[in-house]
């Protein structure tokens, strides 16, 4: 039930994001072109959700934002899951000093207030260490890289705990006794059996990444306009609370739906 509801929410948003170019063609509008004679237009047949402070169509920008937000969420989850699973597996398998160092590192990151650190990180000029800066695609890469710094921790802790319990099972001992190499043991016997907890952690990472991206974009440190992101759509909305309060409604609802969708999927998988 929860799983289905979550998949439904995410599916709708993803379909909307994928359909963005067609909707733009169908309405005959450009989500990035300002139209200063048509600012704050109310909802109508041409602008189903009205227009924003620069006269751009809100529905189209919402759909463009879906592409950005979901891309950031999924990419961060992929990076964090890969990194976290490897680190978690390594810690559980090697044990000893490696385990202790990796897990203290995880504890340290977990103890930090993530957002203030992210704010300072996001302002660092990543161009000088090889990450591009400026355009939408490079903004996405930059944000994903920054979010992965914290993202791997949750996955690694869950993966480690699950891997520890699997490594102690008899079938692992049996595999080793039959002469399976360590690589084969980890890949064929451990990994498939810890996929469940990892999937849950990945779903939660998507939720966290979407929230963090929108927050950074809202603060002006994430995806920079004119590219649309649900977060930077709300950055305008704060200046407009007196003149056009309705502008604030839709992007927030979109974030809410995406994050709730991921949380529901994670909850559903847990049962």
């Amino acid at each position, binding site marked *: 039930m929860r799983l289905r509801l979550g998949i439904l929410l995410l599916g709708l948003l993803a379909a909307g994001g994928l359909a963005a170019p067609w909707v733009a063609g169908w309405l005959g509008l450009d989500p990035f072109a300002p139209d200063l004679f048509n600012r704050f237009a109310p909802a109508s047949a041409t602008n189903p959700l009205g227009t924003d402070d620069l006269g751009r169509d809100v529905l189209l920008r919402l759909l463009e934002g879906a592409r950005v937000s979901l891309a950031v969420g999924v990419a961060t989850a992929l990076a964090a899951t890969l990194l976290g699973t490897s680190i978690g597996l390594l810690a559980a398998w090697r044990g000893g000093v490696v385990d202790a160092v990796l897990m203290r590192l995880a504890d340290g990151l977990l103890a930090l*207030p993530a957002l203030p650190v992210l704010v300072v990180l996001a302002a660092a000029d990543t161009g000088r260490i090889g990450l591009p800066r400026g355009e939408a695609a490079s903004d996405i890469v930059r944000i994903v890289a920054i979010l992965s710094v914290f993202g791997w921790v949750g996955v690694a802790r869950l993966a480690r705990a699950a891997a520890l319990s699997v490594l102690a099972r008899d079938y692992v001992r049996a595999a080793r006794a039959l002469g399976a190499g360590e690589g084969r043991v980890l890949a064929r016997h451990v990994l498939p059996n810890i996929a469940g907890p990892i999937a849950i952690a990945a779903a939660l990472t998507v939720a966290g990444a979407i929230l963090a991206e929108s927050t950074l974009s809202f603060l002006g440190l994430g995806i920079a306009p004119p590219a649309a992101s649900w977060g930077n759509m709300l950055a305008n909305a704060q200046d407009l609370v007196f003149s056009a309060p309705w502008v604030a409604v839709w992007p927030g609802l979109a974030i809410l739906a995406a994050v709730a969708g991921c949380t529901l999927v994670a909850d559903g998988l847990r049962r």
Partner: protein
Amino acid sequence: MIRLLAGRLLQIAVTLALLSLAMFLLIGLMPGDPIDLAIAGDPRLTAEDAARLRALHGLDQPLLTRYLAWAAALLRGEFGYSRLFAQPVAQIIGPALGSTLVLLGAAVAVSALIGLSLGALAAMRPRLAPFADAIAILGQSAPSFWLGILLIIVFAVTLGWLPAGGSAEAGGWEALRFLVLPVATLAMANLAAYARHSAAELTQVLRAPWITAARARGVGEMRLLLRHAAPNAAVPVLQVAALDAGSLVGGALITETLFARPGMGKLIYDAVMGNDTNLALVALLLVALVTMLATLAADLGQRALDPRLA
């Protein structure tokens, strides 16, 4: 106990050292050093002047040397100057920390009170549980800056009851009026965790045999909840408080920025935006330290309540 405390304090110190090193090196990569800004502000400065100023302020040294000098000064209690505010950092940070602690304290109190009530309601009346669950998921999923904007629109713009931001000149009731919306924003984002954990914990505790025994003796439902079940559910709630310290502080950054309320979060944000490297770093380290100490305090509280953990 002493060993545990010493270990945790050591861990905090190591974390802070690594964080400061990583951040210092990264911020060293930020666009424009202070001298570039000075040149932009005063076209009469020549390239020779710039080189001389860089040497004077040690900016021609390698990054690592600068880090060591800066860290040593921090340890001696010299926090340096803020370029943005043209004041010693120590003077700016004191009032900001006080303001943030007031905000955080009020938000924790409100979210724990409402969250625990919701959790208790869900545990006592299982039919209401899905409802409380839905509120918890929504509260966890809604971005807090959006909730803040909605609150501003409803209570400041439409109804005009409360100020949309800023802080009071005078203390007393007026200051409280400025506190309501920021605290509500921060509390709404954090009450979900309290509700979910206390509901789960209370549901389990209420199935315990001693609860059935107490009920059989004729203990009333309210007394049962408050005297018999609640103390047992307090431990995981402290656990939530410990786990959530970081996100709460992050929430303070958003709320303070959104409501233009002076505090550590807004200070970090303004310092980052204004290229005030030293202020940003010192404020970030202080916030991290306070967060980790709060987490430690909550952990110790858990141990005090639950002898099995000690």
